């Protein structure tokens, strides 16, 4: 994925990190990437709006790519969720650019994140299906329905943990075994037994 498109995205991201979403222009991105405006427009004919949307999409995929790296070696459904929630919450808090945008431009960022997040429900659900399949479902629960439910709950807790402290592995384990999995799977084994 290296090439002008990627270079433009990275340059735009650098500009956004510096100046914010609203103030970043096609000129800024072109200058940062060392390319002409015409080249940027060739890759992003929609101009600034398309560029900004593409950067948000790309960063969203980067974030969930890191999450995938973190959990894909897990051997059980519980482990996927434990590790995933701990990692994602920490990564989100430590994501300086995201936190800055949320503070200064929530009105610009939020609609874009909602669109991305809705796409991500399907991605996360698809990732969970094999684990659910292997684990076995509770009676009467359809696997895709459960995966969809888990995916949207995961996104909800990561973004807004409410009264849960997702930095505490004990609390994460409790959350996973109650609000997330209790109704979904037939039986839950203790952590570390699988």
């Amino acid at each position: 994925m290296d090439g002008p498109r990627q270079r433009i995205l990275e340059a735009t991201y650098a500009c956004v990190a510096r100046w914010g979403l609203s103030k970043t222009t096609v000129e800024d991105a072109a200058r940062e990437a060392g390319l002409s405006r015409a080249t940027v427009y060739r890759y992003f004919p929609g101009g600034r709006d398309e560029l900004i949307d593409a950067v948000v999409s790309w960063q969203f995929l980067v974030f969930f790519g890191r999450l995938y790296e973190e959990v894909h070696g897990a051997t059980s459904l519980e482990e996927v969720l434990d590790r995933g929630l701990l990692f994602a919450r920490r990564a989100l808090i430590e994501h300086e650019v995201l936190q800055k945008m949320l503070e200064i431009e929530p009105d610009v960022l939020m609609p874009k994140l909602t669109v991305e997040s809705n796409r991500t429900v399907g991605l996360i659900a698809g990732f969970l299906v094999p684990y659910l399949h292997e684990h076995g479902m509770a009676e009467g629960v359809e696997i895709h329905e459960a995966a969809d439910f888990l995916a949207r709950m995961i996104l909800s807790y990561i973004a807004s943990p409410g009264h849960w402290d997702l930095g505490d592995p004990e609390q994460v384990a409790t959350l996973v075994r109650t609000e997330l999995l209790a109704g979904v799977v037939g039986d839950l084994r203790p952590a570390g037994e699988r």
Partner: protein
Amino acid sequence: MRHLEPYCLTVGLARLELVRDETARDPGPDHDVAPVPVRVRVIDGALSCIARQGVAKTTLDDVARAAGCSRATVYRVFPGGKDGVLGAVVDTEVSRFFSALAVRMGEATDLEDVLVAGMTEAATRVTEHPALANLLAQEPEMVLSQLAFARMDEVLAVTCAFTTPFLGRWLDQPESKRVAEWATRIVVSYLLCPADGVDLTDAADVRRLVRLFVLPGIRALRVPEAGARTTGALQSHNPIPTTKGEAS
């Protein structure tokens, strides 16, 4: 969360059944002696303007026209101008929303019902609210920026504080709090990102979610934290009374 002015709260509670209809501006022959106060007309006028043309395009002139008063009168009642009016509209609508929720949840006779009633009512109020529907379609940033990350945590806290007591008949306080927050998450998630085949304004769909995912989760929550990691913790040693009529 905004501070709820007592006056707005009273208006919201007392006029629960007048939501979004014209009778608010037309008190009818029986009410000749007590005309609708100008403050209420301004708030209702602003609400109908927002439902029609959104927040950005609504001017104080539009609000004054809808309220049947002058722009100067709007300023007299709301010295803060448009922001002041919008604040009062939000306060009024939020208190109406919670009032409606209280009515439905207060009527429930068991834990399953109180959850189904609360979640269905919340989803229905939000979905069918004309001004909110217009905002989500035309100016989504106004709504969406309130429903994620730290601001969503505030929404969770406020909704949780309001709904927790309604669960207290069946669950102890920490359990009620957890479940209230969880139910709020579920409603917000399915509203912002609709799932195929799940319609939260349909009580049957909500009941299915509650039975499949929420009630088993509550049973698991009831077990002391220390036991939550063991197999036994997730079985129904402490079944929650959910049978109809049990509470009566």
